[in-house]
């Protein structure tokens, strides 16, 4: 006898797993939780993700730490190590198993600094100080950059050197502060605050060279985090070497891994800008060249009368229209030739090959009667004097004869 299931709901495995996942994801405690335990079964996958369990005397909790988070770990986890992990608990539907998704982890009992760090991090994160929505975009071409750092030491000199090599157009103001010791956090916060009262700074870099967690501590202080958060001027954090992530790094509008890296991120690259400029210059020349070619074609068409052939106006009227158009074009061309010549000459270095005057170098000549360019035999009478411009000067000529010819 088979069961009659027609009156009760039956769920798929996936539905059950998703239902449980939704329950867990809605739970406030599970969303953000610190778990103490001992690491076991630690595996690093080629993908960069880390899988392990946390155990205590009577149970185990499956854990996963994704590549991005694992890269930021400030120690190397080993089996048997006591740790405190921070993250959220959720279901992995494929296995129908729940696990802790670890965002950060530190050795248990390593000291108060770690705990203080984690407490502050969790608090400020909950307050929204790390939100992407609050981050201010960096200026593409900073005018004046304030370096809030120690005026001594390698960090400030590295930054100045790299800024100068990449983008000497940006001015640099060194705002000296202590970056270590009890006074450091207050000085850094005050400096960032004061810079915000100036009108000339449009980017702040604050940081120092690498060191121990104690050395870097000022950048883990709430005062500094809040000053960065409140700064209307974008702030790049530049603390220590790659694996050190400070609270300041989380709040900053951009995190650089080192002071040198901050300098690279702060300004455009001179070579890149030179390339962009070359590109624009070339496109400018090509564009004007094509406009000139178009105008020339239009003029030719008008001269041959082709453009007007389909019109039904009486011949006399058409001729008048043609003449008037031609006069206007001729006058425009002649005027422009003269007016623009100086300008074109100035650009000659870059644009020589593309310059309209270059045609003279190929053996073409421009004939003028007074101010007007002569493009038709109708514009000159026998005995008139014409100036004929060639590549290196002007020939004064006299019209001896006129003969109409078609070049087509």
């Amino acid at each position, binding site marked *: 006898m088979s069961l009659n299931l027609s009156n009760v709901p039956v769920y798929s495995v996936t539905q059950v797993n998703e239902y449980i996942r939704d329950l867990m994801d809605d739970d406030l405690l599970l969303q953000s939780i610190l778990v103490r335990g001992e690491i076991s079964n630690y595996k690093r996958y080629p993908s960069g993700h880390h899988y392990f369990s946390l155990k205590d005397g009577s149970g185990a909790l499956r854990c996963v730490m994704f590549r991005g988070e694992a890269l930021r770990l400030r120690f190397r986890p080993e089996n048997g190590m006591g740790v405190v992990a921070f993250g959220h608990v959720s279901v992995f539907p494929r296995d129908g198993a729940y696990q802790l998704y670890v965002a950060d982890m530190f050795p248990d009992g390593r000291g108060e600094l770690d705990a203080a760090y984690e407490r502050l991090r969790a608090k400020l994160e909950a307050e929204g100080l790390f939100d992407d929505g609050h981050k201010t975009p960096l200026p593409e*071409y900073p005018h004046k950059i304030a370096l809030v750092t120690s005026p001594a030491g390698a960090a400030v000199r590295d930054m100045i050197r790299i800024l100068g090599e990449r983008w000497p157009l940006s001015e640099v*103001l060194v705002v000296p502060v202590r970056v270590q010791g009890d006074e450091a956090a207050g000085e850094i916060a005050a400096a960032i605050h004061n810079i915000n009262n100036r009108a000339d700074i449009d980017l702040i870099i604050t940081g120092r060279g690498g060191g121990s967690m104690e050395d870097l501590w000022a950048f883990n202080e709430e005062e500094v985090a809040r000053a960065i958060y409140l700064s209307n001027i974008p702030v790049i954090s530049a603390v220590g070497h790659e694996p050190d992530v400070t609270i300041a790094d989380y709040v900053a509008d951009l995190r650089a891994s080192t002071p040198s890296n901050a300098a690279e991120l702060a300004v455009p690259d001179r070579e890149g800008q030179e390339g962009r400029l070359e590109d624009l210059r070339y496109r400018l020349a090509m564009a004007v060249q094509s*406009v000139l070619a178009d105008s020339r074609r239009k003029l030719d068409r008008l001269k041959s009368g082709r453009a007007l052939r389909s019109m039904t106006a009486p011949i006399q009227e058409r001729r008048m229209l043609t003449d008037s158009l031609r006069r206007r074009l001729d006058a425009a061309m002649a005027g422009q030739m003269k007016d623009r010549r100086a300008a074109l000459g100035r650009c000659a270095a870059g644009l020589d090959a593309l310059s309209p005057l270059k045609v003279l170098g190929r053996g073409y000549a421009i004939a003028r009667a007074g101010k007007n360019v002569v493009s038709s035999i109708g514009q000159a009478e026998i005995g008139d004097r014409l100036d004929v411009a060639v590549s290196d000067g002007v020939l004064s000529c006299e019209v001896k004869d006129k003969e109409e010819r078609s070049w087509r």
Partner: protein
Amino acid sequence: MAVKKQTFEQAMGRLEEIVNKLEQGDCDLDQSLKLFEEGARLAAQCEKQLDEAEQKVSLLLEDGREIPFDREDG
């Protein structure tokens, strides 16, 4: 044409605008040549700024004065 000296950013922005406009090809000859002239001037100006730029570094003193920063000794 007396124009206030533009920043590199402004000059590049305007140059890009001019090139785009010219490439659209709907300006008349006179306008095109004027734009070309302005563009060429901007390009030269940007290049000059890059060539002549000299990094200026100063140190802020406690009393608010700014003095040149000595890069060698820090």
